[in-house]
């Protein structure tokens, strides 16, 4: 079973109570510290409320993500990490009113890191696939828009259940190589729509040329076998981000060759986006993005223009309001107005 529906308001209250407890827990101060295994454990999380008014769909308010992650650093060999997520919880919808009986839970990440040497780390379990920076850092408070670019998520396996080896060439510049493999299907996967795929065996790599406070650049490869299908996908992408004093520029380009005996309009998925964030005044930021994407299995490509405002008083809290205009084949996110509040705690 890939998710757990619960028709019980007490479960929701339990999750929210835990969240509030985590938010209100006092910081640790030096004179309170006693050495114990509990000091090695860190509990955090994030929440995202989204209000959307897309064309051809009802206006709705959704608790899109309520995520708790627990990590621990015991020694070189035992560094477990768990992220449990409640997602897509509809709170209110035009025509239907308030609803509190639709909770989905999933194990988003569950892995252990073994520090083999100072520069080599072996990760085993379920983790986010190193396909681009957005996928690795996709928490709503950390990204600029409510809606995610298609290029950053579509066409490749976003999660891996298997192994990953990371080698750091240079700690200061972030120059590193990550190689991963998934021998079978993803553990505890979320339900997929007709536009998405479940992946079987997957292998890939990400070469991070630089990742510091000013910019990152990464090149990613992935070979994936679609589960219960003869389809294989080989993708290559490059993504980068440059944080200048006066703007933040981000882009990704993706090409995926799709190999299958089934009918496809095109032999490849390909696309890319360019996004610019410009600081205005008092923590307000202007966001614009243009994306073009062509699907192997759709006749028409998608062109998306997005413009919005983000208020980010501190890095871990953001209020977003954006208008998205979509033409052509629509994978998700129709033309419309989207807003969200997201906090990292």
């Amino acid at each position, binding site marked *: 079973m890939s998710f757990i529906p619960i028709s019980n308001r007490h479960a929701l209250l339990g999750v929210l109570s835990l969240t509030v407890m985590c938010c209100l827990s006092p*910081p*640790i*101060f*030096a*004179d309170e*510290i006693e050495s114990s295994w509990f000091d090695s454990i*860190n509990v*955090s999380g*994030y929440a995202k409320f989204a209000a959307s008014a897309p064309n051809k769909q009802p206006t709705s308010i959704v608790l899109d993500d309520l995520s708790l*992650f627990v*990590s621990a*650093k015991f020694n070189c060999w035992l560094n477990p*990490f768990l992220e449990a997520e409640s997602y897509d919880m509809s709170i209110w919808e035009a025509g239907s009113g308030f609803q509190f009986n639709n909770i989905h839970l999933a194990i988003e*990440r569950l892995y252990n*890191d073994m*520090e083999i040497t*100072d520069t080599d780390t072996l990760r085993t379990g379920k983790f986010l696939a190193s396909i681009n920076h957005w996928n*690795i*850092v996709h*928490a709503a*408070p*950390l990204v600029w828009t409510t809606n995610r670019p298609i290029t950053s998520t579509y066409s490749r396996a976003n999660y891996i259940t298997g192994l990953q080896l990371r080698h*750091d060439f240079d*700690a*200061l510049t*972030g120059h590193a190589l990550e190689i991963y493999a998934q021998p079978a299907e993803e553990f505890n996967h979320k339900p997929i729509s007709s536009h998405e795929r479940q992946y079987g065996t997957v292998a890939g790599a990400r070469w991070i040329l630089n990742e*510091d*406070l*000013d910019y990152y650049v990464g090149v990613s490869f992935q070979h994936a076998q679609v589960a219960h299908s003869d389809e294989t996908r080989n993708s290559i992408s490059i993504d980068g981000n440059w*944080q200048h004093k006066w703007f933040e520029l981000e882009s990704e380009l993706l090409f995926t060759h799709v190999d299958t005996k089934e009918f496809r309009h095109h032999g490849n998925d390909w696309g890319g986006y360019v996004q610019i964030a410009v600081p205005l005044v008092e923590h307000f930021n202007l966001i614009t993005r243009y994306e073009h994407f062509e699907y192997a299995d759709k006749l028409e490509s998608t062109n998306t223009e997005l413009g919005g405002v983000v208020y980010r008083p*501190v*890095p*871990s809290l953001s209020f977003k309001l954006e208008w998205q205009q979509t033409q052509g084949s629509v994978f998700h996110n129709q033309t419309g107005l989207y807003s969200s509040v997201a906090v*990292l705690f």
Partner: protein
Amino acid sequence: MKTLIILLAALLPLSVNADLYIIGNKDLSIEKLEKSDIAAIYLLKKKHWENGEDIMPINLPATADARTHFTAQVFDSTPEKLGSYWDKMLFKGETPPVTQNSEQAVIMFVERIKGAIGYVETKPQSSQIKILQQFK
């Protein structure tokens, strides 16, 4: 008013020119840390001392002058940018530096925790502390 301006002008260079001390516990096996090592530690990339013990970087609140000084000196950047970086590292499963409310709390922390490293603008007098680097 004129007196006030002269007074402010006299005080301003003092705050700008305050020294910054990178401090560690006296039991650390090293005597000096290069700027690149300090940066790697606070970027959460360098996690262990040479003897294998865990490094625990200590931070001051985002509004502290010493933090602005530290971020400018070591990273040529701003506390906001570094804070945003740490939030991303938190999501990746890395624990950001522990924040202490004052320089005195940083000194107390480093005195008690062997693997801790911190930064202060006031030169510590404690015998339990060693200065690993000093910036003007």
